[in-house]
Structure formats: structure tokens, C-alpha cells
């Protein structure tokens, strides 16, 4: 029942997209009618997914597609988590997008509407697919529609370049996924997931399938060293699209990894987890230090997504280790931390990307060095973004902290891991997670402080306007989701337990009796009650406020900033984005490839430039790209442009084939 309803909703997205073509140039029609309708569909999908956690898995065969390859679809607890994520996030993003797309920006709105809703439906299909064929159809729909969305401002060469890079990486990944399915089917070419679950794999083929899947989905998720497309594609796309790509699309890759590892392969070897864990920790660290030195606000968020994907894969790696060693309860804890972080990151990163979209629209600037002081001009955007900033910085009582807390807990009680060497390594992993979480706070203070606080760095910022009503509703919805996920962890974990039971056969269970107290480990060992936290903090703050104003006075005068008595303060004296990143560049100098242009003393027009680039791009991708184009040049020898030569080639090929056959 729920599955059919989901299919209807995905079809509705498709229909809304096609309806956009009817009046492709009308902003009113597309923005005021179709996008809000899409948001409604997203909301319905979230509700539908929410109710299907407790139900047994449902299957359905849809006779569409190629004659002998119908679509097998399945809705189970794992799909439900990610469908809920898709529904909740897309509700907020579609509402925002309704007010966001304007006239005269690249692709006409009707076409954007089609691409946008196909993108959503494609992601939905990926989550529901129950055979490799429909999975790949969904996967490619998602990849291609998002490619067109990324290059919607295709007149700019750097955007075309970013789109191309994204396209290449997406297809390298898709190829690996396809190969992984090829290994998983085990020789009988039954491509349904049901038959893959039944296939017995040797340890070698199972490992091969796992690592192909890890590379394929890792490329989509942005796991270092396959992350290079992310900092290019996210800034290039319009902000609602960046929000969806970062918030939801990266999570479909996480979904794919979980589906292949725990469902299709079924019994993972523990050492796979160690590799996933190492990659995850490295991505988290690498992502966050690069986020700290960025000067473009959307690029900063893209790097921060790499960090969060790293955290998610860290949790995934832990789950595999624990599951492979037969420690069900800890595996459940790690898996729930992973899924929780997926949900959290989806809502908070979308919120931040939409915030940057509003800023971009109001100011036309993505460069942090030209922003500042927007909290006065755009209070709605600023305060709602602040919720996302505090959440992603991992501060209680918001949602980012809950998953960080769960993840650290699953690192902590690992005394009984039967491999002493793993036992020693895991706590060091906890140290890296703690470092990344603290660095995320640094990055977010920079992000919010430089954009919204301080003095405006450009005169033009004085004309910045706040977001429109629909945009505020979209932002507000996501901020609300951040708060709700932060305050109600017990209820959310109650849902995620079904997924954990389905994949691992173990649940976390709620061991405390109170509805507000999260206690996932044996009673007393660890507990966290965000609600009590918030209520008591609010009580203390209100009491302080009341006491101060009653006992003393509330007089306030305004005056010029003091700044140690320095009278001629101007906006250029604030820290720049480069300046704020400087300690990180200094402390972790070895990771960055820095180019500096310093002025000489007798320079009349001194310039100071710093470019920080990614060593992995320089060291691995550029040589690889060069190699590919050299090989292509070799083949270009064949390209003579004369029909006689081509006929000769065909003739020779035929002869060779005939010789082989006969």
C-alpha cells in the first residue's frame, strides 16, 4: 500500500516536471504553482516513509521498461530512512526554490522545473529499486538531470568545466557500481536484488563486490580521493540544486553502500570496515581543513560536505567492523549514528546552502571577502542560517550534536573487540572525530561571522534585501527539522531501530524509561537529555535576564565602536576570510599546496594573493588527465577525415573478425 503510494508520488514529481514545459517561460506558473506542488509531494513522501518503518517490506513488479526487464521495486526500513530524508529535505528546498528562480538566468524556468523534478524522482527510484536494472536507470536519471542543473548557467566557461568534471566522475562511479552488480549476480545473470541476496559469494568475490561498490558510491558521495568534483560542482549549481545535491544526492550513495554491504552481500568481513573507516576519517579531516581555508562560501560548504561524508563513512566503517566481528549491539549503535548523521546532514547542509542562495541573490556575491554585516539587512536569513550553523558545528541541543555523540559513544565502549590491534586503533579514530568536530566549529564561526556579522565589506551590500516569504518558509522548515531532530533523538532512534534490525539483526533498544532521555548504552553509562538541557538553559537565561533588569536597569546607549580607542575604524580592518583561515593553513601546512604573491617593498600598487589548492588534484588528477589526453591523441592518428581511409579500416576489421570466427 505504502509502496504504491510512493510510486504515485514519484510519478507526480515527474508529471509536475513535464507540466513545467507547458509554460516554460512563465515564472509565475512554475514558481508559484509547480514548485509548491512539488514541495507538497515531498511532504507526502516524508509522511509515507514515516509510516512505513514499522511495516514489513513490500515488493512490487512494474511492467515498464524493456520487455524482459520489468522494474522490481521494494520498500523496506532502509529505503524508508532515505525516503524520509528525501521527502523532508525536498519539502524545504522546493519551497525555497519556488521563490528563488528568477527571470533571465540561464536555463528557462520550465526546463529547470523538469530537470529538478526528474532529479527528485530519479533519487526516489534509486531508493525504491529492487533490481540492478531499475537501480541504474534511477541512478543515471539522477546523474544526468543533476548535470543539466549544474550547468544551468552554461554560458560561463568555468561552469561548463565544473559540469564536465562532475559528469566524468559520476560515470566513473556508475561504471564501478555496474561492475559491482556484475560480481554480485554470481554468474546466473539474474539482476534482481532478491537473487543477489541468495547468491553465495566466495570471500574474494565478496571483497571485490564490496570494494567496487565502495569506489563507485564513494565517487558519488565525495569520499577523498574521489572528492574533486564536489568543490567545483556545488558552487556552480543554483543554490536549491546545491542543497539537494549535497543534502540528498550524496546520501543516496550512502544508501547504496549500505544496501550492497549489509543487504546484498549480507555478511561483511570486518577488515573492510577498517578500510572504510580509514577513508572516512581521512575524508573528514581533509574536508574540514580545506573548508577552513576557502574564500567562496559555497565552496566552503562543499568541502564541509566532504567532511560530513567522511564522518558518515567513519560510522559505516565502524558498523562493518562490529558486524563482521559479531558484536551486534555495538554495530547497531554505530549504524544508527551513521543514519542519524545522514538525516542531520541532509537538513542542516540544505539549510546552509539555501542561506547562501538567499545571500547570493541579495548581493550577487559568493566571495566571502565582499560580504559582511548582513544580519542587519537580512535578519530572517541570518537567524535561520544561524540555526544550521550551530547544528553543523555540533553544538547541543541541536541535531548535529546527537549524531556526533552517538558516534563517539560507539567508539568508546570497544574494550571487548577481539582484535587487540583494532582495539588500539579505534580510540585514535575517536580522537580524529573529536578533532574534526572541533574544526567544524571553527569553519562555521568563519562562515557565519564573515557573511553575516561585522561591517559590510562593500558599499553595495547596503541595498541587500531579505529573502521572500516562500524562501523564508523553506528555510524555516529546515531549521525546524534541525531543532526537532536535535530535541527528539529517542523518537527518531525508535524509527531507525527498525532499519538496524532489518540490516544487522540487532537493535539499540531504548533502555531508559523517560521519553526525553537518550541512553543507548547500559543504564548509567551514558545519557543525554536534550530537552532537559534546553529547558534548564532557557530557564537560567530568562532568570538572569529578569534579575538583571529588575535589580539594576536596562539603559542602553549607542556609540561608535571603541576598538581600543582607535578612531578611524573601517571595514577593511576586519579579518578577511583568508585571515580567518590562516591559523589552519599555518598549523596543517603540509596538506595544502599554497601559492603566495607577496608585494615587494618598492611596489607602488602592492597586491597580496594567496591561492590554496588541493594536492590530490595536482598530484593525481592532472597527471591522469594528461595521460588520457595523450592516449586520445595517439588514437587521433586514425582520424584522417577521408572516407576512403575509414572504409579501409572497416574492411580490415571485417577481415580480422572473419579470420577470428572461421
Amino acid at each position, binding site marked *: 500500500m505504502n509502496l504504491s503510494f510512493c510510486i504515485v508520488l514519484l510519478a507526480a514529481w515527474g508529471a509536475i516536471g513535464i507540466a513545467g514545459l507547458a509554460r516554460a517561460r512563465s515564472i509565475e506558473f512554475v514558481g508559484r504553482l509547480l514548485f509548491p506542488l512539488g514541495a507538497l509531494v515531498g511532504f507526502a513522501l516524508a509522511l509515507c516513509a514515516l509510516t512505513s518503518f514499522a511495516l514489513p517490506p513490500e515488493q512490487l513488479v512494474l511492467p515498464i521498461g524493456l520487455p524482459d526487464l520489468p522494474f522490481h521495486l521494494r520498500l523496506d526500513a532502509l529505503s524508508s530512512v532515505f525516503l524520509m530524508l528525501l521527502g523532508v529535505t525536498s519539502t524545504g528546498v522546493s519551497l525555497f526554490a519556488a521563490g528563488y528562480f528568477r527571470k533571465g538566468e540561464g536555463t528557462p524556468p520550465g526546463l529547470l522545473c523538469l530537470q529538478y523534478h526528474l532529479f527528485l524522482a530519479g533519487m526516489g527510484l534509486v531508493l525504491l529499486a529492487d533490481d540492478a536494472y531499475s537501480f541504474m536507470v534511477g541512478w543515471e536519471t539522477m546523474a544526468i538531470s543533476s548535470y543539466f542543473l549544474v550547468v544551468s548557467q552554461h554560458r560561463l566557461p568555468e561552469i561548463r568545466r565544473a559540469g564536465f568534471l562532475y559528469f566524468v566522475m559520476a560515470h566513473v562511479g556508475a561504471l564501478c557500481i555496474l561492475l559491482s552488480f556484475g560480481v554480485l549476480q554470481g554468474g546466473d545473470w539474474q539482476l534482481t536484488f532478491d537473487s543477489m541476496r541468495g547468491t553465495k559469494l566466495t570471500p574474494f568475490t565478496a571483497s571485490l563486490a564490496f570494494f567496487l561498490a565502495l569506489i563507485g558510491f564513494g565517487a558519488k558521495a565525495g569520499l577523498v580521493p574521489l572528492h574533486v568534483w564536489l568543490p567545483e560542482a556545488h558552487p556552480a549549481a543554483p543554490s536549491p540544486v546545491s542543497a539537494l545535491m549535497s543534502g540528498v544526492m550524496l546520501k543516496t550513495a550512502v544508501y547504496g553502500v549500505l544496501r550492497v554491504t549489509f543487504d546484498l552481500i549480507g555478511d561483511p568481513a570486518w577488515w573492510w570496515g577498517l578500510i572504510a573507516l580509514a577513508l572516512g576519517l581521512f575524508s573528514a579531516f581533509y574536508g574540514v581543513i580545506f573548508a577552513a581555508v576557502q574564500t567562496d562560501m559555497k565552496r566552503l560548504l562543499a568541502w564541509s560536505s566532504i567532511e560530513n561524508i567522511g564522518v558518515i563513512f567513519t560510522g559505516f566503517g565502524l558498523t562493518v567492523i562490529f558486524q563482521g566481528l559479531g558484536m551486534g549491539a555495538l554495530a547497531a549503535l554505530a549504524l544508527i549514528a551513521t543514519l542519524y548523521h545522514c538525516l542531520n546532514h541532509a537538513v542542516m547542509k540544505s539549510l546552509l546552502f539555501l542561506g547562501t542562495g538567499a545571500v547570493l541573490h541579495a548581493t550577487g556575491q559568493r566571495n566571502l571577502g565582499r560580504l559582511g554585516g548582513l544580519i542587519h539587512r537580512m535578519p530572517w536569513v541570518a537567524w535561520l542560517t544561524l540555526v544550521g550553523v550551530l547544528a553543523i558545528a555540533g553544538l547541543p541541543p541541536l541535531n548535529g550534536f546527537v549524531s556526533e555523540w552517538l558516534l563517539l559513544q560507539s567508539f568508546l565502549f570497544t574494550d571487548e573487540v577481539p582484535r587487540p590491534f583494532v582495539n588500539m586503533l579505534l580510540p585514535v579514530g*575517536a580522537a580524529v572525530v*573529536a578533532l574534526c568536530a572541533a574544526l567544524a566549529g571553527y569553519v562555521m564561526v568563519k562562515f557565519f561571522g564573515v557573511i553575516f556579522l561585522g561591517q559590510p565589506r562593500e558599499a553595495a551590500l547596503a541595498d541587500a534585501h531579505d529573502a521572500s516569504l516562500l524562501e523564508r518558509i523553506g528555510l524555516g522548515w529546515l531549521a525546524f527539522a534541525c531543532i526537532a531532530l536535535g530535541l527528539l533523538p529517542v523518537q527518531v532512534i525508535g524509527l531507525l531501530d527498525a532499519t538496524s534490525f532489518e540490516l544487522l539483526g540487532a537493535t539499540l533498544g531504548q533502555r531508559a524509561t523517560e521519553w526525553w532521555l537518550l541512553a543507548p548504552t547500559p543504564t548509567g553509562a551514558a545519557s543525554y537529555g536534550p530537552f532537559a538541557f534546553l529547558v534548564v538553559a532557557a530557564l537560567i537565561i530568562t532568570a538572569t535576564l529578569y534579575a538583571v533588569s529588575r535589580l539594576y536597569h536596562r539603559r542602553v546607549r549607542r556609540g561608535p565602536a571603541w576598538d581600543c580607542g582607535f578612531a578611524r575604524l573601517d571595514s577593511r580592518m576586519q579579518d578577511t576570510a583568508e585571515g580567518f583561515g590562516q591559523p589552519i593553513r*599555518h598549523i596543517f601546512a603540509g596538506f595544502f599546496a599554497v601559492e603566495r604573491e607577496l608585494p615587494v617593498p618598492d611596489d607602488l600598487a602592492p597586491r597580496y594573493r594567496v591561492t590554496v589548492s588541493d594536492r590530490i588534484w595536482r598530484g593525481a588528477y592532472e597527471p591522469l588527465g594528461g595521460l588520457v589526453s595523450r592516449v586520445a591523441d595517439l588514437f587521433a592518428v586514425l582520424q584522417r577525415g577521408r572516407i576512403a581511409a575509414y572504409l579501409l579500416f572497416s574492411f580490415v576489421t571485417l577481415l580480422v573478425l572473419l579470420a577470428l570466427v572461421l
Partner: protein
Amino acid sequence: MSTFGLLAQVLEIIAAVLAAPLLLGWVNQCRAWLQNRSAPSLLQPWRGIRKLFHKDAVLAENASALFRTAPYVVFGTMVLAAAIIPSMAMHLPLSIAADSIALVGLLATARVFLALAAMDVGTAFGTLGARREMMIGFLAEPALLMVIFVAAMISHTTSLAGIAESLTGQDLALYPSAAFTAVAFLLVLLAENARIPVDNPATHLELTMIHEAMLLEYSARHLALMEWAAALKLFNYACIGFALFVPWGLAAEGAGPAGLLISIPALGLKLLLAGAGLALIETVSAKLRVFRASEFLATAFLLAVLGLLVHLLLGA
């Protein structure tokens, strides 16, 4: 939740709020004695706070609402932290609401608000202070977490009260790992509370200042709350240290009012000793350059990790 528990909880909060400026006064007094100056009164921080509350608040022209709310948020989180940390009695009603990891998160919340408020006016000193504070923060926070992890692994709980309970519950045993983590904790305490050698609480108008640079634009009641919160932070860190390393004297669960009769003097004694020790450290060491602070805290982090490895290797 017993009535006594609730009363003890309120008592603990009030005691922390009142005693925190006194601890600061005591440190200043000790330092003055060690440096052969005539010491200010123990009540001097209190007098300063009282004076500030009476003054008119002056806000910079472009200060936003965030700037005005931050002192209340920072003060509120510090008071909440004081309520969670078992300074007098274990297992007070609020202690289950947050374990030690949540406590670290709470302290981070205060830090982020402080840094954001410092960036709000957009002065050179404010943003510089914010940047440095966040730098110290991201280095100190993982070190503090590692210290807590070692204690959590020894006692199989992350609840601070649980850690203290398991340490008091057994015979006096010296953990080699605790020696490493205690030093690491001390380094974190110095850095997080803006003490010498990382920052100097006694100076203004110096390019090396961190904490004071963030407070430059604050005045009157807002400044009073910020300074009070800083005093509370020192008090809280001291109490975290007591709970992790010297929890003796804490009133056990169900000890009733008699437990408090022992725990309050014990807390007072520990604070006196710790304050004197802090003054001694500050007198004998010189301030580091800001960029040496990262090495200072990396040492703390490595010591904590060493403590962890020692714990895992020796099982102690």
C-alpha cells in the same frame, strides 16, 4: 527525584555562581603575594562585577541583537555546566541530562557564541580575538575529550558523576594513564581559561591578547556577565578536574545532608590548593607566542593519546 536532590541541585548552582568570582579573587591574591605585590581583596572580582552592573551599557552603533544576547547565552551555558558537573554531590537530578561529552559540547556552545559576538561589531581586535579563540578551542577540545575518554574507559561510563563514583568507590589506586591525562588536562585548563602561558588575563592593549580582545566592545552589565561567565568557566574546569582526578569528598548518592557537610569543606580546600597552584604556574612561566600555542596544545593532545594507549596496553 527526591526533594533533597532538587535542593542540593539548586544549592550547587547558587554556590557555583557565588564562589566563582571568589576563586578568581583567590588566584589573583596568591599571584600578587608570589610576585611580592600587595594583594587586592578576595572580594575584588565581586566589586568589579557589582560596579559594572550599575553602569549604563554602551553598544557599538552596528551591534546586532546577537551581540546583546550572547552574554546571557554564555552566562547561561556556564551556569548549566556548573549544574551538571558534580562539584559537591554525585547524581544530582541534572547530571543524567548530560554526560561528559555533552558537557564538552556545552562549553563549545559558549565558545562559539563568544566568538560570534566578538565578530559582530567588526573591529580588528574583535575578529582577531575570535579567530584565536576558535584556534585554541579546536586544539583544546579534542585534547579534553581524549582526557575524558581515558577516564570513561577506566570506569566504563561517560557520565562525569559515574566516573567520580567509580574512582571513589575503589581503593586508592594510581593509574599510570591518569598521570599523562592529568598533565594534558592541566594544559587544556590553562589554554581554555586564557591563563599564562597561552593568554594573559591581566593585560589589555597587547597584540597577543585573546580572551580580552573579544570582550573589548562590551561594557556595563554585558561585560559583567561575560566576566562572571569567565570566572564560572575557571570554576567549572577546576571542578571537572576534581571529578576526574581527585573526586574524594564528593557526597555519594543517598548520603543526604550529612554528605554535604563533608563535601563543601572538601571542595573549598581543593579550590584553595588549585587556585594557589594556578597562581604559581602563572608566576613561573612566561607567555608563549600565539603560534606556539598550537604546539602547546598539540602536546596536551599527544599526552592524552599516550594516556589512552598506556591504558589500553597496561589495562590500567
